[in-house]
């Protein structure tokens, strides 16, 4: 349903944009190259990314800063080779003024390397690789409406400590995003006096978590932090419940594992799972409620983080276009405008702006999966940590002296 209307919308839009282009006065439209994994392992998220982004432009009539907005979509097929190829195509063949999007960190890194060489602005509302706004930052890569991997798990660790949890086991997908999320969690958790009994790393697309579960149970942790995304998240939550662990050990997960893209096809096994994130679809706030309602009306489902971040990202860009008078060709001025945006009245909550390294500062919500009145599952906030930056309470320059999180370095403080 949403797919057909998307196609229809895009088709109509494409037609009308040609017409508009023909009749444009002086400056043509602002062309935004949107990269998204529309096929491949993260195809569901990719679809929502595009839907969320376009929803905003549809709502404001495809205009901002006095110019038409043209969105050119390319599929990055969930793989970095294709992402690189499509980024080149968008910039060199389709002559877009900026690139936005991508979901998987490796695709983002490949495109970031490409734009490092030619200065094209690249905005990443979902790519969460820490170092892109820390040790390896690139001036024209800005994480509007996005978050860095370790940013969201630190409040979760703090919350766990507050709840009296002292022994934790982490289970994570074995790749950079997983390392960074776990690192953020483990560092705060151990610095606060907790201990990490074990860390389980498994390859992406693990069909079977059953080999790990009995081991976890036998170690008797107070809680388990599961860093999962995509199908792994869905399977983990189900297998956790199927093996009878749900009522025995508290489950914390990454915000991706309790994202709508996963819980909307799950049942009672997902209820009560706690995660932390800057997006909480059950939050009682005007802008948030409006966005969720609009999205639900357009696409018959609750929005996931992919839709949310790109909707907010589009809003951010619109502000920047307005502030720079639509002159995106003047890159330094445009990028400056992007950096100075203070986004208010967005689903992100109270006024959001970037820190001086290009990453936003948010209120982070500790969320719990619960049932809405109509039976659908969604996340409701149980606590809020205001103004969390990518550096938590650490001094940025000091923090960046420590190595990047990896399998070997998890920030664990030896007792």
């Amino acid at each position, binding site marked *: 349903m949403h797919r057909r209307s998307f196609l229809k919308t895009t088709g109509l839009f494409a037609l009308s944009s040609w017409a508009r282009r023909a009749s444009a006065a002086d400056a043509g439209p602002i062309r935004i190259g949107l990269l998204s994994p*529309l096929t491949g392992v993260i195809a569901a998220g990719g679809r929502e990314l595009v839907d969320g982004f376009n929803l905003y432009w549809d709502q404001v009539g495809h205009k901002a800063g006095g110019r038409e907005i043209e969105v050119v979509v390319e*599929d990055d097929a969930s793989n970095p*080779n*294709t992402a690189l190829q499509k980024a080149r*195509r968008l910039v060199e063949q389709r002559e877009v003024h900026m690139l936005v999007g991508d979901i998987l960190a*490796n695709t983002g*890194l*490949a495109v970031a390397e490409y734009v490092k060489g030619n200065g094209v602005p690249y905005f990443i509302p979902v790519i969460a690789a820490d170092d892109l706004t820390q040790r390896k930052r690139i001036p024209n890569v800005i994480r509007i409406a996005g978050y860095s991997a370790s940013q969201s798990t630190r409040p979760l660790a703090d919350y766990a400590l507050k709840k009296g949890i002292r022994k934790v086991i982490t289970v994570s997908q074995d790749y950079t995003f997983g390392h960074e999320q776990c690192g953020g969690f483990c560092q705060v958790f151990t610095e606060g006096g907790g201990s990490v009994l074990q860390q389980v790393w498994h390859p992406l697309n693990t069909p079977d978590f059953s080999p790990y579960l009995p081991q976890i149970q036998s170690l008797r942790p107070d809680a388990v932090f599961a860093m999962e995304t995509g199908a792994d998240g869905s399977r983990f939550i189900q297998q956790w419940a199927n093996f009878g662990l749900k009522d025995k050990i508290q489950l914390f997960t990454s915000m991706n594992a309790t994202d709508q893209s996963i819980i909307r096809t799950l049942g009672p096994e997902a209820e009560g799972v706690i995660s932390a994130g800057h997006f909480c679809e059950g939050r009682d706030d005007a802008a948030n409620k409006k966005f969720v309602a609009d999205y639900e009306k357009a696409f018959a489902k609750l929005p996931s983080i992919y839709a949310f971040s790109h909707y907010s990202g589009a809003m951010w860009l619109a502000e920047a276009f307005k502030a720079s008078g639509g002159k995106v060709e003047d890159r330094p001025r445009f990028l400056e405008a992007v950096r100075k945006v203070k986004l208010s009245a967005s689903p992100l909550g109270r006024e959001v702006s970037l820190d001086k390294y290009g990453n936003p500062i948010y209120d982070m919500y500790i969320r719990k999966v619960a049932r809405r009145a109509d039976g659908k599952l969604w996340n409701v906030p149980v606590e809020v940590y205001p103004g969390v930056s990518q550096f938590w309470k650490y001094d940025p320059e000091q923090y960046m002296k420590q190595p990047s999180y990896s399998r070997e370095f998890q920030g664990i403080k030896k007792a």
Partner: protein
Amino acid sequence: MSRNAVPFAVVAAALCAVPFAAPGYKTSLATEMLIFAALAMSIDVLAGYAGRTSLGHGAIFGIATYVVLYTVTVAGGHPWMGALLGLCAATVAAVVFALLAIRTSGVYFLLITLALGMIVWGICLRWTSVTGGENGLRGSVRPSLLAGPVPFYYFVLAATALMSYAMWRFVHSPFGLTLRGIRGSESRMRTLGYDVSLHLFIGFVVSGFFAGAAGVLYAFFNSFASPATVALAQSVAALLMVLVGGVGTLVGSFVGSVAIISLENFVSFHTERWPMVLGLVFIATMIFAPEGLVGRARLMLARYSPQVRKP
């Protein structure tokens, strides 16, 4: 031979004129077409002339790419050194593949090369300390002389022309004729006293060498290597180029490469349904034109110009 000289000259002139007639992005697209044509041709050497269709050449190609990237971005070496090491690595990989694969033929050969390719992919994905895991290796590796798209295009054109010529001479040499004999009937060649296994082994290694050369060019082109570079999809795409162009024609690899890359460029402009289009092209080619575009053209030429055929 003189019959072919005129079309050849025309094509050569056209290829040289590309940066002027089709500047900017189109030139880099043409560069990509040449690189993949070279990969496809290396597959054709084995499939068309020795009768062994491989689904592992993408992995050999990608190994060269990885080695170039690693040499320059991690080990701090010179790009040309990387190129040399890449060629060596690809050849070694081809030797290993060949040792395991030449005892089989037909579908089993396809499956074993597929399996070996997947092992390479698995290594590239999991050996994070060396290959960068799923993030891959990135960083500028193109030699500084060739930095611009136009000089690079001419370099690739020259390299591809050289490689094509070498492959052409190879399949038309006595060794190549033996390979064709093996494709025709292994048992016959054996009774005639030929060491079939040795011939196939050498043929595979030579073919792998050229796949590696294409991989080096790709490293210079892309400045990026990731598990996707060695994945099965790479071998499948290159094989499709051979099939669409025409197995056993060598020049068909160019036709196939241009056709598939242009098609992909066109299709992705309008829709994200490229995988479906790719699948349909596979199906259509297998049913309607299994001998490929060039093969079909040759058949039709032979049929409609009987006076050219010698008795």
